[in-house]
């Protein structure tokens, strides 16, 4: 059951990410300083290479697994707590570190908005799915 919860949470966040970066593909490319050629170059997200997507799914499973561990040890149950804790982890734990990287490497603020938005909403979705599976049980 716990594996199903973690995989479902990861899958939900992964699907959200596909939609998110689909919607923001143009501003993301501009903010990341990438051209159409860059993203179609070997290893790029539209090169046909599976690697970025495999990395993303594996990492998302790891995040979901760790969040489940924290939810279980912290006794996070119920939809409201799942939303609050998931949002908190994304907005106040993942996003701060993303922001420090981007501010020092002088990346446009839009990139931080798009990427932190993905982390925050992605973690919130994972929090919701995890509590729906009753993680603390």
């Amino acid at each position: 059951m716990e594996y199903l919860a973690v995989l479902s949470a990861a899958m939900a966040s992964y699907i959200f990410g596909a939609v998110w970066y689909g919607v923001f593909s143009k501003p993301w490319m501009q903010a990341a300083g990438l051209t159409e050629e860059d993203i179609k170059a070997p290893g790029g997200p539209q090169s046909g290479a599976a690697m970025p997507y495999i990395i993303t799914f594996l990492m998302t499973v790891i995040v979901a697994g760790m969040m489940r561990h924290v939810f279980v040890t912290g006794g996070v149950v119920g939809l409201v707590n799942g939303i609050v804790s998931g949002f908190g982890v994304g907005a106040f734990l993942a996003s701060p570190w993303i922001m420090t990287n981007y501010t020092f490497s002088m990346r446009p603020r839009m990139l931080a908005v798009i990427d932190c938005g993905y982390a925050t909403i992605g973690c919130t979705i994972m929090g919701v799915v995890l509590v729906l599976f009753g993680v603390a049980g």
Partner: protein
Amino acid sequence: MSLIGILVAAAIGFVWVLAWMRWRGFARTATDPEDPDPIAPQLLTGVVMVLAAGMVQYLYFLADVVGWWEGMTLGLGLGAFVAGPWILVQASFRRQAFGGLLDAGAVAAGCGMMGAVLGLFP
């Protein structure tokens, strides 16, 4: 929840981020006249480190994490398995997976140090 713990942990995170960014060669300073961004990276880092320390403290409060060892191991876990993966994912889409891996490792180390302090000041 201890405010002292949050502030000390945030200060350690702040110093760690500055040292790491210098090592990475991201030597952006607040006094660069070419820089159009009015928010100094040091100021932003200081603010977000307080947020990060506060969030970890809240999770430690929920999970009854006490002591530097317990705090450090869970901090390492949060850095390596929650914050770090997002950085690696986003860097890999920019075809900078190696840099992302380095930065994710630095996040894990930073979270570990901050977690140890937060475990000491529950």
